[in-house]
Structures are given as structure tokens and as C-alpha cells.
């Protein structure tokens, strides 16, 4: 709100105008510069860093994706040839990239639904708890949220261990048999993804739950009471009163979760190290990583596709953040 105030003339507190005010930020002594020197100096370090480390590689990757650059070009110092869309054609027709893409998108949908749905249920649960109980749940969720993803994956890998995992022991004890003795959870792609989903959801739900819970706090109680007096049942109150208030929060959470779940790398990679079949369980990130150094043109084409896909999804995020800025 006070974002557009100039420094010494704050009297007209109008949050609108973009064009620079005639009197530039003056310290002592008159400075009649047309060019806003001070702010750009402040921005310079960040701009240089981001241009060098983000903008430049993005352009470089885009260019590389149209060439046949390989590791031997780097070794010998020979220039690469321009090959047009060959890399893209190869990636989409002659590799298992399409399968990986479908797998990643499916996983993303499942994870996002489970995390946002579960987070919402937990947020509603926390709303109904008294203070002490709510603290208990909060502490648990915070611990899960704070665990470094790699540590969490290593622990879950051990919990689902083939020989000494507590899950196999538990299932044996419950069923009273030895059916699960030596049951390998990670070898089969389907149960590999089940374990993966458990890990990611376990870590992802706290963020969704806390955020939605904070959002629920913004729903005015009077409106809920009024609707209750008018005879709305719990589901109607949730759908017709709470949801409209929560829509922006829910959208923000869904968009962020979608992006994060499409970008997961650590959990998948570490679980593969513990016994998963990489070729059957790769997602976008690990697939790209496992292409390795070599055909830089092809990996650049995959990268360009990932950037476009993720940027497309984040469009909504950027737009809503800008709305916040303008508000």
C-alpha cells in the first residue's frame, strides 16, 4: 500500500500513480536527475545476478535445444550444428519421455488432490479442536513439515524396508501370518509410487493445512451463525459460505502444490536409490537427471519443455501475486 510513496513527500497518500514524481528522491542538496539513479543502483546486484544465473541460461538452453551439441563438442571445442526441431521430434517420438510425462502429470494430480483435500479436512479438524488439542496437532504437523525431504525419504525407505521394515512387521502381526516377510515395497512400480505418495503427502499436508486453517479464520463468524439460523446444514455452510471466502486461498494452495508436485526430485531419486526400478519410476526431474551429461541438445529440449509447462501453470500464481501488489 505505501509502496509508491516517495520519500519526503508522503502527504498525498494515493497508492496509484506509476509515473515518477517530478521531484526525485532528494537527500540533502538539490539533485535534479531525470534518470532515477538511486533505485536502479539498489536493484543492480539482484538484476545482474538474475540475468546471469536465470535469464542467460534460459536463453542458452533454448538455443542449445535447436543444436546437436554433445559432450565431444565441448571436449574438442568444435561448434555444434543447427538441427531445427530434430531434438524435440526425437524426445517426443523416439524416447520414453511421453510415458514419463504422463506418469508425472498423473502423480501430480493424485498428490495435489490428496494434499489439498487432506489439508482442508485437517484445517476443519483444527477449527473444532480446543486449544491444547490444536497445539498437539500443530506440533505434529510442524515436525513433518520441517523434516528435510531427503531425511524423510531415507526414514520412510527404512520403515518400508524389505527385511526389517516396521510396516512388514506390523502387517504380519495384524494378519497373524508371515505373508509380508521379505515383501519388497519398492521393487514393484505401483507400490513404489504408493510409498512415494505417502512420503510426499505426509510432508505436503502441513503447509496446506496451516494455510487453509489461517484462511478459515478469516471467515466471519456472524455470517456462519446467520446461515445456521436460516437452516443451512454443515455441508451447505461449507459449500456456500466458507468456500467463497476461501476461494483465493484454495486457488493459491492448489497452484503452488501443482508446481511443487510436478517438480519433485529428491524423494523420487532417493527412493530409487533404495531399490526402485529407475526406468519404471522416473518423473520429469529424475528422467532429465538420468539422461546424464552427453547429448546437451536433447536434454535442453526436455528442459525447454519443462520450463514452458511449469511457467504455464505458474501464470496464475504470478497474476494473483500481482493483484496482491496492486491492492
Amino acid at each position: 500500500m505505501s509502496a509508491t510513496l516517495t520519500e519526503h513527500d508522503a502527504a498525498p497518500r494515493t497508492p496509484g500513480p506509476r509515473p515518477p514524481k517530478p521531484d526525485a528522491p532528494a537527500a540533502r542538496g538539490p539533485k535534479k536527475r531525470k534518470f532515477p539513479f538511486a533505485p536502479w543502483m539498489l536493484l543492480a546486484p539482484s538484476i545482474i545476478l538474475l540475468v546471469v544465473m536465470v535469464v542467460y541460461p534460459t536463453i542458452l538452453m533454448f538455443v542449445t535445444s535447436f543444436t546437436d551439441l554433445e559432450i565431444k563438442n565441448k571436449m574438442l571445442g568444435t561448434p555444434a550444428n543447427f538441427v531445427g526441431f530434430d531434438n524435440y521430434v526425437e524426445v517426443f517420438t523416439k524416447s520414453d519421455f511421453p510415458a514419463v510425462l504422463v506418469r508425472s502429470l498423473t502423480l501430480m494430480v493424485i498428490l495435489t488432490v490428496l494434499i489439498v483435500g487432506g489439508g482442508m479436512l485437517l484445517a476443519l479438524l483444527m477449527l473444532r479442536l480446543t486449544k491444547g488439542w490444536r497445539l498437539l496437532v500443530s506440533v505434529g504437523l510442524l515436525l513433518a513439515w520441517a523434516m528435510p525431504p531427503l531425511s524423510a525419504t531415507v526414514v520412510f525407505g527404512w520403515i518400508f524396508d524389505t527385511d526389517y521394515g516396521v510396516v512388514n512387521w506390523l502387517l504380519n502381526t495384524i494378519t497373524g501370518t508371515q505373508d509380508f516377510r521379505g515383501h519388497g515395497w519398492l521393487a514393484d512400480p505401483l507400490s513404489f509410487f504408493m510409498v512415494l505418495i505417502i512420503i510426499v503427502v505426509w510432508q505436503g499436508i502441513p503447509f496446506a493445512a496451516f494455510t487453509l486453517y489461517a484462511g478459515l479464520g478469516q471467515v466471519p463468524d456472524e455470517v456462519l451463525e446467520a446461515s445456521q439460523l436460516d437452516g443451512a446444514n454443515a455441508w451447505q455452510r461449507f459449500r456456500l459460505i466458507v468456500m467463497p471466502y476461501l476461494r483465493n486461498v484454495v486457488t493459491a494452495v492448489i497452484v503452488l502444490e501443482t508446481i511443487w508436485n510436478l517438480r519433485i526430485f529428491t524423494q523420487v531419486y532417493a527412493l530409487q536409490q533404495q531399490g526402485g526400478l529407475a526406468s519404471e519410476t522416473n518423473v520429469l526431474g529424475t528422467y532429465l537427471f538420468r539422461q546424464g551429461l552427453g547429448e546437451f541438445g536433447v536434454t535442453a529440449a526436455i528442459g525447454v519443455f519443462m520450463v514452458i509447462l511449469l511457467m504455464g501453470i505458474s501464470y496464475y500464481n504470478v497474476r494473483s501475486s500481482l493483484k496482491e501488489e496492486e491492492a
Partner: protein
Amino acid sequence: MTTQISPAVQLAETPGRMTPGPQKARRTHRRRAPKVVVNTVAILVFLCSVFPVYWMVNMSFTPSNQIISRTPSFFPFEFTMKNYVTAWTREAAPGQTDFPHALASSLTVALAVVVVCALFAFLASIAIARFAFRGRYVFIVSVLVVQMVPGEAMMFTIYNMVDDWRLMNTLVGLFIVHLASVVPFTIWTLRGFVAGVPADLEEAAQIDGCTKAQAFWKVTFPLLAPGLVSTGIFAFIQSWNEFTMALLLMKGYNLTLPPWLNSFQSATEATNWGAVMAGSTLIALPVVIFFLFVQGRMTGGLVSGAVKG
């Protein structure tokens, strides 16, 4: 930690029991019945959230012969520190770093990222929040867009770049990569903090005789300290946990902690799970502690913006 509970929520919770108006009574009745169920669910949620963390710590204190056992031990009765000693002293794999060296690498990179990133973001957020100038809006949009560029999609391009600069397998190379990945978010967060300190305060100080610089350092800067701390912690956690680029760029004796743990747990010889759990615990510890400080701000920021918009 649950700082963002608005009064509305608390009202909805407690009063029913004490004020027995007709409507309230009916409502209380309906709410009270499943209280046991609700609390049971709460306990279940707590147990499910905590169990893996508990299991990690439990295993890290359990002697090896009890870890490799058909019946798991749910409490380290034969308490041992041996796993921690092993994790601390043994190299991850032949020819690779040991824990103390990896810890030093991780700390160096993370702390450098915190300091430089806080400085960069601080300057930039002042520019955005305190100056009106042509190009300000473009910069804000660019930061948001840049923040969304998935770094790991460019992993090999960045690998080549770092290689060309002769920074491969150096802490400086990893530092620059981490720095670029946290700066956009930090600018965005700090901008909110700077905008939250009214410019009036500075003006008042100037009227009282401070110079502009004094007004800033004595009035605004102290008010920004919490913002700097929480963005700094965010940057630290990001760098500390970062796995993909560290795995790609660092080798042998220069591994940071996440790739160290990865090597340690997938060592060719039979994995020493007690030591792996001890290593995991050591890596998780600082993050968990720091996390408690910033948690409220991270969700709070998102919500206040999203609800307003």
C-alpha cells in the same frame, strides 16, 4: 506458531458451553457429541505425523544388532551413541567426504547464501517499496516470473556454465547457483516487510533532526530486523536442503550434506542403518529448530495476500 488465529475462530469454539441460549444449546449439543471422535482423530493425526520422526531418532540410538531384527524395538532401551560416532567419522563411500567435512561445506555455502541474499534482497526491496520510478512494475513482474523458472530443468545448461567458469566442484559455484534460486523469493518477501513500515516514521525522525540515512538506520532498519531474520532462515533452509544441483556439481571430498547422506545410505557394503538414521537426524536438527521460527510468517503472508486480492 498458531499466531494467525483470528478472534472469530476462537469465538466459534469456546462460548457454546457457557451460554445456553436456545440456538446455542442446539449447536452445542450437535458439536459436543462427536468430541471424543474429533479428539481421537487429532491423536491419530499427531501419531502419523510424528511417527517417522520418532522412528528416525529411535533408530539412531538403537544398537545395530537390534536394528537388524525381525521384531522392531520401539524404544532404545539399550541406548547407544555408537551410531552417531560412526556417522561422524566414517567416510560416505571410499574416496568421498566424511560428515564433518560435508557439514563444513554445507555451512559455508548456506551462511554465505544467507548473508549475500539478505543484502541483495534488502537493497532491492528498499528500491521497490520506497521509490517510485519508471520500470518498478516491470521489475516486480520480472522477479515473480524469474522465481517461477524451474532451475532443475536447466541443470545441464547450468552445469556447462559453471564448468566454463572453472567453478565445477567448488563451493563458490554451488553458492552462486543456490543464491540465484533464493533471491527472487527473498526480494518478494522482504518487500512486504519494508512496505509494512510506514514511511511516516522516517519522516517524523527527519523532522526531529535526523538525516535521511540516520532516519533509515535508526528507525526503519530495526523494524525490518524480524523480516531479515525470517528471510535469512528461509534462505538457509533452502540451501541446506538443496539436493539436485549439489548432486550434479559436487564430487568426492566437496559433497555437501544431502549428497553425503545419499552416498552414505546407498554405499555398496551393507548399509549401516543406525548410522544413516543418526546422519539424517543430525541434518534435520538445525532445519527443524529454524523452522519453528519462520513457520507463522510463511503461511501468514500467503493468506493475507490471497484473501485481500
